[in-house]
Every structure is written in C-alpha cells, then in structure tokens.
C-alpha cells in the first residue's frame, strides 16, 4: 500500500452504529450526491482533471462516467483559468457545472475567473444572470505534499462577495451539502479534506439537503466553545471528548459553511461559555480564524471571559517533510492544551 493511502487508512474515527442507519464512507457519500444530482437534472455536468481516471478523485467520481456518459462527466485539459471561465459561461447559460480539483492549490490559477467573474456576474448584470456552479477540491495534508499541494485557501476567499464556501466534516454533511451546493444558484466552493475521505458515517440513501449558511452543535458544553469546520473541527471534537474526562465541558459548533457564516449560533454559544476557540485548516492570519475572532471582539466583547484563541496554521508555508509537519499542523494534543489554558486562566 502506498504511504499516503496507509496514512489515511491509519486514521481512527468513531465508528457509527449501524443500528442508526446505513453506514457509508465519506468519499462514497460525495459520489452518491453527484450521482443523484446527475440523475435528477440533465443540466448538471461534472468535469476536471482526472475525474475519469482509475483513482477517480479519491473515489468521489467513481463510475460516474460509465453511468452518465462522456458528455456529462469528462476529463479536462490542464487549463484551470480557462475551464473556470468555461464553467462561468456554461452556468450563465443554463447548465450547472461541477468543476473538480484534486487540490485547492490548483484553484489559485483560476482566481481571475473565480473572484473577478464568477462571483461578480450576478451583481454586475443587476440580477439578471445567475451563475450556479460548484468548484470542488480536497485539501491535502501529509506525505510530503508540501507548500504547493497542501494549501487550504478558504481564508483567501472568505472576503469575496458573491461566493459561498462549504467545508463539511461528516459523510452525512458531505452528501447533503454537495446537493445543496449544486442546487444553489450561486458559485459555491466545496472544500473537502483528504483526511476525512475514509471516515464512515450514517448516510441516508435518498436525496436530502443540508442547508448552506447554518451551523450545528456537535457537542453541548458550558465551559468553552470550539467553532470551525472540516478536518479541523474533527480534531476539535476529538479534543473535546478527551477533555470531558478532565471535567472540562466543551461545546463544539460545526459551521458546515464558512460563507455565509452562521454568526447566530456562535453568539448563542458564546453567551453561555464566554470562551472561544476557533479552529481552521488554513492560516490563522487573515482567514477564518481571524474573521471569527474579530467578530467576537467587535460584536460579542461583553460575552467574552477570556481572549479568543485561534488554532489555525502559523504564518509559514507548508513544509513537505514529515518531522517538520509535526511542528506545523495543529493536533488534538495542541488543541486540548489550548483549551486547558483557556479554562484555567
């Protein structure tokens, strides 16, 4: 087994109880969402570099070309900006593109089309033109992916009006949020995380949607609020469960969508706990952590009993080597330690 596969396989998640419903893997849940969308709506098409190759984007696009044909599910030229623009034009004219990328890093080549065109067209045309498109990518981490294959770029996009950004953390959400993203009439970015791809969860077989812009409590508690999304939230939840044994009662909010941001749920929790830890897979500076931290300082200062803590990435490029990575990425231990400091302050 290759080293990267082994690493993802070695990750341990809480196993779902099959009595609660059908158990499905994360990548399969996304695959199911795409299949349902393709089946329901002939205007949906799925494309990107490698969607039809044997690895099928972590399994997310597996068998889709066989089922729906080469016209609707196809490999693309390595033309990130051109294909992003093509998606914008297709979306403006009746189609619903789903443009897949193995890594968010590749989307950086297409910022002109994403930021300056996709996000703006509806506004610039005074509401006449809609741009219903999904841009999907899986954040990498580990096995030497390094500075150019590990970046989590949501922080660069959170300030762009007109975009929506979805970051699921469970197989259930991955399916329901993907269906919501495809049915939304705006450009929606869906950032998955490579390390969640083999996580199992309870996933209903039928069509369902998880609403965009609404967070959810993953754990109720009274001492500290952890807020975040995607794999960072998973680590936060693991830390919270661990700290329960020490008598620290942590509330965990999964944002699911970081733009539009569910401010209400954060405020509601903060009123109770008075302590806020923001976790993110991206850089702390100027990103999701910074934005939520600023909101707390600006709007909810009276609720705060202690300073807001950010747990994102340091202001450093992603290293490639295994040892350096251990210093670079936050883990359960570091999140737990931050929470202990906050509570015992």
């Amino acid at each position, binding site marked *: 087994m290759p080293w990267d596969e082994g690493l993802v396989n070695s990750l341990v998640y809480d196993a779902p109880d099959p009595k609660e419903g059908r158990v499905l893997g994360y990548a399969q849940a996304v695959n199911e969402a795409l299949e349902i969308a393709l089946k329901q709506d002939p205007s949906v098409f799925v494309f990107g570099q490698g969607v039809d190759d044997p690895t099928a984007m972590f399994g997310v696009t597996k068998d889709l070309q066989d089922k729906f044909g080469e016209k609707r599910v196809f490999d693309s030229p390595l033309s990130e900006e*051109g294909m992003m*623009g093509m998606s914008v*034009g297709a979306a403006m004219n009746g189609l619903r593109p789903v443009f897949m990328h193995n890594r968010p890093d590749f989307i950086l080549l297409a910022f002109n*089309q994403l930021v300056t065109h996709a996000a703006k067209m509806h506004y610039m*045309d005074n509401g006449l033109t809609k741009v219903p498109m999904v841009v999907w990518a899986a954040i990498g981490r580990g096995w030497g992916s390094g500075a150019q294959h590990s970046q989590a770029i949501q922080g660069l996009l959170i300030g762009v009006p007109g975009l929506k950004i979805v970051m699921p953390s469970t197989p259930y959400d991955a399916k329901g949020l993907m269906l919501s993203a495809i049915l939304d009439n705006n450009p929606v970015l869906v950032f998955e995380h490579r390390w969640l791809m083999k996580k199992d969860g309870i996933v209903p077989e039928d069509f369902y949607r998880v609403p965009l812009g609404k967070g959810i409590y993953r754990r109720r508690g009274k001492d500290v609020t952890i807020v975040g999304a995607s794999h960072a939230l998973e680590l936060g939840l693991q830390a919270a469960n661990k700290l329960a044994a020490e008598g620290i009662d942590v509330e965990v909010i999964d944002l699911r969508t970081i733009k539009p941001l569910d401010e209400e749920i954060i405020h509601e929790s903060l009123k109770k706990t008075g302590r806020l830890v923001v976790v993110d897979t991206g850089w702390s500076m100027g990103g999701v952590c910074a934005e939520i931290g600023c909101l707390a300082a600006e709007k909810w200062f009276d609720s705060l009993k202690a300073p807001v803590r950010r747990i994102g990435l340091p202001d450093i490029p992603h290293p490639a080597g295994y040892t350096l990575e251990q210093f670079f990425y936050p883990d359960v231990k570091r999140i737990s330690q931050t929470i202990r400091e906050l509570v015992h302050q």
Partner: protein
Amino acid sequence: MIRYDYHGTGFAGWQEKLNHYEPAFLLKLFRDMLRIRIIEEEIERRYWQDHMKSPIHLVIGQEATSVGACAALTRADLLYASHRTHGNYLAKGGDLKAMLCEMHCRINGCVGSRGGSMHLMDKSVGMAGSSAIVAGVVPIATGAAFAAQMQDESYVTTVFLGDAATEEGAVSEALNFAALKQLPIVYFCENNFYSVQSPLHTRQPQREIYKWAASYGMPSVLVDGTNVLAVYEAMQAAVARAKQGGGPTFIESPVYRFRAHGGAGDDSKTGYRDIAEREAWQKVCPVETYFAFLKSAGLIDEQARKVMAGEIMAETMEAFDFALASPNPTEADLYTHVYAD
C-alpha cells in the same frame, strides 16, 4: 513613422458582388455604422461636462467590425464583449437610452449602474456579457458555446477580443477547448495594434495572429476590418459552420482606433504612435470608404446621408435628455443581487 500599415484593398472588386445583396441591407449596414459614429462623437463631445462619471473606450474607427459581425447574427445568437463595448452593444441591438443611462450612472441603465461603459450587457438582445479584464470574457463565451452544444440549442456565440488578449493564457486555453469539443463559437479578434499605448511589436514576435490561432486546430482567417461587407461575409461563413456542427472559427480583423485607449480625443501626440499613422488609417475610415462605395453604386447620395444623420442625431439627443432626466440609484439599490435566490 508609420509602424502599422493598412494592407487591405478597400472595396476594390466589390462592385461585382453588389447584386448579391438587397439595397436595403446594404444601406442598413451604413446607417448602423454612421449611428455608432455619431453617438460616439456626441459622447466624446459631452465627456468634459463630467455628467458621465464612467471611463469610456470609444469605438470610433472600429465601427465596421461590430456592424459587419452583428449583421450575421440573429437576436438569439450571443455576443460577448471586452471593455470596448459601445459598438458591440449598439450593433447587437442594445437600447441606446439604457446605454446612456448606464454611462450617466442612473438606475435605469442597462445594468442598473453596476457596469458603466465597460460592462454593457443586455440579455434580451443577446448581449450576454462583457469583462474589463483583458481576455476575461473569452473562456466565459466558450462556456456559453459549450452550453449550446450540450443543450442542443441552435444559437452561436461570438466573442470580441483584442490583439493583446491573445497574449493571455486564458485565450489559448479557450481555443484549445473549443477546438477539442468542436464548439459553436466565433472568436473575433480586432487587432488595433495597441494595448493602451503598448505597440504590438513590443508584445508579440513577428507573426500573424490568425496563423497562430490556426495552430489550435480551427479555421482561421484574416479579414479587412475597415470593410463592413468583408467582415459580414467572414462572419456569415463562420456562423454557418458553427450552426452545422463544424466547430469554432477564429477571425483576425486589423482595424485602427482613431482615439485614445480611454477617454475623449486622440492621444497620439503623447508620442507612443505617430499622428501620421492615424491619419493614414483615417483615409480608409470604415464609414467613409463604405459611403463612397455605396455612392458610386448609386445607392446613396450626400442628401440622403444628411437626412439619415439628422434622424440619428435626433435620436441621440433624445436619449441623452432621457438619461439626464433619469433617477439616480438609492442606497438600497447597492445591496441587491449580491447573491441569487
């Protein structure tokens, strides 16, 4: 020094083709070009008054490309434009009042004062999108053509781009994809030799743009951009090919911008190009050469032109009055349409 010469042959030899056309059609082409010229000159004349708080990119000297190209299109066909939108918009059937309201930042502008001169759009006439980022609209138009192909729609998409756009990677990417998928699209490249004030030879090696485009695997032709009929015929062939499933076409059309890149007046005196070069091209002005051609064929005379110009001027004045009397947006208008429902 004249750096970029006119290499065309004007209307020499075109007399023989005249009987292929209805006189009314030939006269309409002239009227449409004259209309754009008069409207642009009036915009230019009033620009100093500062009621139009918008950048302008005048199309004076480049009327034949817009009019000739759009004459080959139906209303259902889509046109995508760059920042130099006035000619495209008017030739495609855009509403003059809505255009001038847009330039005067009024709420009843064609895009509610969100675009200004650089972003004229009107979906109702197939003026489907424009971008002020050079080449920005080229992949988008390619996506529109992809949508037509996928949905089995019969419309053809045309996208206007400048010579400098061909230096952008996005155009290469779009041409590659259009050829790969055999999309129903026409790439119409107006080569006016200057990107703002940067001449072509400092930006591209010695080559012909249409030959470069042909290497992507599509028919590519060079057409005299001062000759409205030549443009029309090239477009007609390209559109017919696209409609028959024959895929994309690239058209390079050398033209000359008689005015500055932006704003009113010519800026040749700043030294980036020789005034003699502009003057040489003004001798093959698309409006005047075509007028002379029609006149020699007995289809129009000075008096008929004067009547035509008078009608256009009256329409233009009425549209300006309408724009100046139109309401401004309110603060509430700022917040609408950030997201679609």
